[in-house]
């Protein structure tokens, strides 16, 4: 079986899954198992495809499909394969998660979900594989956009979801216009040219056309990735409206396709367009845009009370990191310092690494958000608390995910952020912009931490939720947990096997032709980079030794444990001490809206003040969904 036929098989199973949904409709159990099976199958196929490309002896796959008068160029090189891998892993988790989660759906939500989801995944896969800005791109884009529009639209009662979905649609269509339109700036562009060709043609165009071309593409993909201020306009609403497992795909992948697009433009097309591309300018633009995005997004995330919105804002922030790293990589590559040149690819790898990391842990966090929604029915952090004792597994997983995204030592977030920021500092020693933006990035890391202390602390530790929500709360079904454990394992592997992943990314870049930085460090991309020293005794090992750090902490923790328990103290369970008169109750919990209040006020100028959290079972939005269920 060739890779190409595998690719068609993937599409076939997706379409079949969609088709089955139309047929089975109300036979929910059949539909659930059939849909899941087919989706899993397609994911497995995709994993096989990407592995065979990335694996030993693999090579990029390039082919064309003829539809009517259009030629659709497809390219599955190392980079696409990497992102396809991420896509399939996340989809797998999301699909397994859906198995039990969809049981909560009412009426026709059920079969609609199974109808659209395969198309959405197909659209995403299409975007990662088409190699043009014309018909192929349009087809994939529209498939993805319309399907995701529907998924967002149905995620919540109409009253709540109509607006966010529409806004999403409008922004995506605007982005599409910009992206497809941009190519026409290249001299002699023919609708349907592959990216490489566009680049070459661009090289012959005037300087202004080039700038306009890149600007339009930056804007288009920027809207998609959620660069400030576009992200704020659609991301929080859309992510918090869609079903959590869909949001997990949206945040984990849909955004990453934007990143993928940016990489394709600024690191591949840019190369073929040669002198028409100004790396200094675009590096700075990306760095500034990235830094603003990461700072504003994260600060806004702190303000949210709806945990899904919190996650959404935080993913804007995280994407900001990636964009920042891409820009700083460009700048470093353009720098005159030899060290900086060699570090450019490190930063780039860090960016890709962070995309993968973020895809995994943000996907995981959204799924965990789904857990919370499933178990408690509310999306309001003010009403949660103390879930750790009733949902221990979810709590543990959430702790790991929060820990990772905060970038604490011995976590996947640490590895990628560390690579990104430390090499940024080294490369940007003489550049005020790079140093200062590095500091902002570091500063923001503290905000990310605050954000997730809040998320984890208020949802899982804090004071009891079961009496807060006046219902008994149980741990979610094992299928939900299984999907999350799967992602957690990957997340941990990203933390503890950084060398493996770096090599994987390195290899994938090696398999992608026309990469801008490929000549940069000469031998750097050949796998020698992550030996002990890269240049002048510069050690970059810290990122590669998280196991050592883990060992250190655990060892010292045992020491601390021994020390603290050396006198064999008794341990007793007591109620919290509230100065005697009151007991812990509904009213005296320091809820989410109060936490960090002064910090929120201090950063009022960043905007993004939280909206009133409306739950699905809120009477103000219920009447809409009620009759619909009865019609069925």
């Amino acid at each position, binding site marked *: 079986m060739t890779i190409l036929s595998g690719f068609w098989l993937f599409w076939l199973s997706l379409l079949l899954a969609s088709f089955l949904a139309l047929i089975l409709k109300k036979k929910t159990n059949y539909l659930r198992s059939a849909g899941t099976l087919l989706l899993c199958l397609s994911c497995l196929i995709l994993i096989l495809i990407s592995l065979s490309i990335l694996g030993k002896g693999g090579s990029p796959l390039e082919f064309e499909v003829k539809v009517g008068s259009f030629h659709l160029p497809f390219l599955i090189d190392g980079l696409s394969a990497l992102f396809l891998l991420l896509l399939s892993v996340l989809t797998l988790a999301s699909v397994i998660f859906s198995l039990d989660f969809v049981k909560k759906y009412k009426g026709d939500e059920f079969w609609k979900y199974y109808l659209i989801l395969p198309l959405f995944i197909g659209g995403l896969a299409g975007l990662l594989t088409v190699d043009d800005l014309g018909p192929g791109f349009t087809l994939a884009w529209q498939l993805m956009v319309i399907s995701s529009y529907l998924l967002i639209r149905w995620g919540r009662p109409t009253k709540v979801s109509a607006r966010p979905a529409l806004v999403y649609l409008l922004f995506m269509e605007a982005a599409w216009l910009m992206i497809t339109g941009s190519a026409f700036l290249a001299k002699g562009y023919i609708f349907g040219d592959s990216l490489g060709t566009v680049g070459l043609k661009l090289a012959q165009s005037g300087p202004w056309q080039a700038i306009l071309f890149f600007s339009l593409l930056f804007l288009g993909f920027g809207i998609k990735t959620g660069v400030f201020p576009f992200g704020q306009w659609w991301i929080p609403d859309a992510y918090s409206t869609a079903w959590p497992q869909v949001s997990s795909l949206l945040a984990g992948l849909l955004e990453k396709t934007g990143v993928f697009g940016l990489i394709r433009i600024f690191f591949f097309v840019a190369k073929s367009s040669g002198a028409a591309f100004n790396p200094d300018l675009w590096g700075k633009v990306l760095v500034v845009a990235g830094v603003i995005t990461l700072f504003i997004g994260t600060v806004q995330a702190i303000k949210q009370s709806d945990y899904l919105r919190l996650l959404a804002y935080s993913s804007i922030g995280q994407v900001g990191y990636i964009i920042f790293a891409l820009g700083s990589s460009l700048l470093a590559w353009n720098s005159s310092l030899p060290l900086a040149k060699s570090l450019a690819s490190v930063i780039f790898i860090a960016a890709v690494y962070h995309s993968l990391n973020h895809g995994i842990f943000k996907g995981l966090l959204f799924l965990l958000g789904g857990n919370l929604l499933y178990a408690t029915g509310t999306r309001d952090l003010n009403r949660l608390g103390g879930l750790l004792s009733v949902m221990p597994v979810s709590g543990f997983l959430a702790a790991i995910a929060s820990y990772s995204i905060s970038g604490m030592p011995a976590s996947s977030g640490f590895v990628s952020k560390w690579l990104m920021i430390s090499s940024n500092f080294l490369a940007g020693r003489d550049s005020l912009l790079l140093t200062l933006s590095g500091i902002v990035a570091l500063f923001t890391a503290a905000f990310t931490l605050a954000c997730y202390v809040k998320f984890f602390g208020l949802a899982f530790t804090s004071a009891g939720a079961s009496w807060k929500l006046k219902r008994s709360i149980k741990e979610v079904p094992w299928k939900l947990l299984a999907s999350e454990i799967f992602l957690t394992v990957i997340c941990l592997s990203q933390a503890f096997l950084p060398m493996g992943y770096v090599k994987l990314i390195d290899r994938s870049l090696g398999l992608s032709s026309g990469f801008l930085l490929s000549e940069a460090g000469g031998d750097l991309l050949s796998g020698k980079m992550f030996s002990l020293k890269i240049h002048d005794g510069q050690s970059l090992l810290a990122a590669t030794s998280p196991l050592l750090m883990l060992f250190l902490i655990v060892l010292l923790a045992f020491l601390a444990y021994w020390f603290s328990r*050396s*006198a*064999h103290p*008794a341990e*007793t369970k*007591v109620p919290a*001490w509230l100065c*005697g*008169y009151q007991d812990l109750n509904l009213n005296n919990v320091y809820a989410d809206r109060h936490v960090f209040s002064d910090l929120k006020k201090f950063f009022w100028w960043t905007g993004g003040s939280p909206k009133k959290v409306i739950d699905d079972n809120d009477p103000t939005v219920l009447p809409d969904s009620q009759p619909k269920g009865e019609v069925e």
Partner: protein
Amino acid sequence: MWKRLTEKAFRRSVWVYHCNSGACNGCDIEILNVLTPYYDVERFGIRLVASPRHADAILLSGAVTRPTLPLVKKAYQAVPAPKLVFAVGSCAIGGGCWYDTYNVTGGGDKAIPVNYFIPGCPPRPEAIIFGIALALGLVDKKVAPVELKQMEFPVDMYRQAKILESNRVIYKLLGEEDDRLLSGRK
């Protein structure tokens, strides 16, 4: 050995939690006063702490009133063992001059086991320090029950008479002897 060391350290570092169960302020002010420059109990390692979780001793001042009775019990439970309780002032020891009114349940030992009594209304800071020093083993107790008689009768006829014996109920009435036996333990 470690355990013994910690026990030894306990008497050298007593952190106290001030618990006012309905005092007139007099004792509270004097309790604060022992922290001030002239008396400075911090030289014995004593600190006033804000949370009962950090405390080793409760300084109870004031008669235990009806509303504070459950609260004092709660506070006592909130202190980790081993713990000491000092009843500071006459109100905390025996309920003070309002020991039997409708809103006062009596002395501190009605609510929680009291280890040391520091009489005074309010006790001078020196008296509080003396009480604390007594607990730390720095000084010896200076008081003992006094029993005086104007005349010794050659025959102990009064004591043996049954009817008189029944009249001795005054002791019970006054001091609640049983209570004293319970609370006045070493």
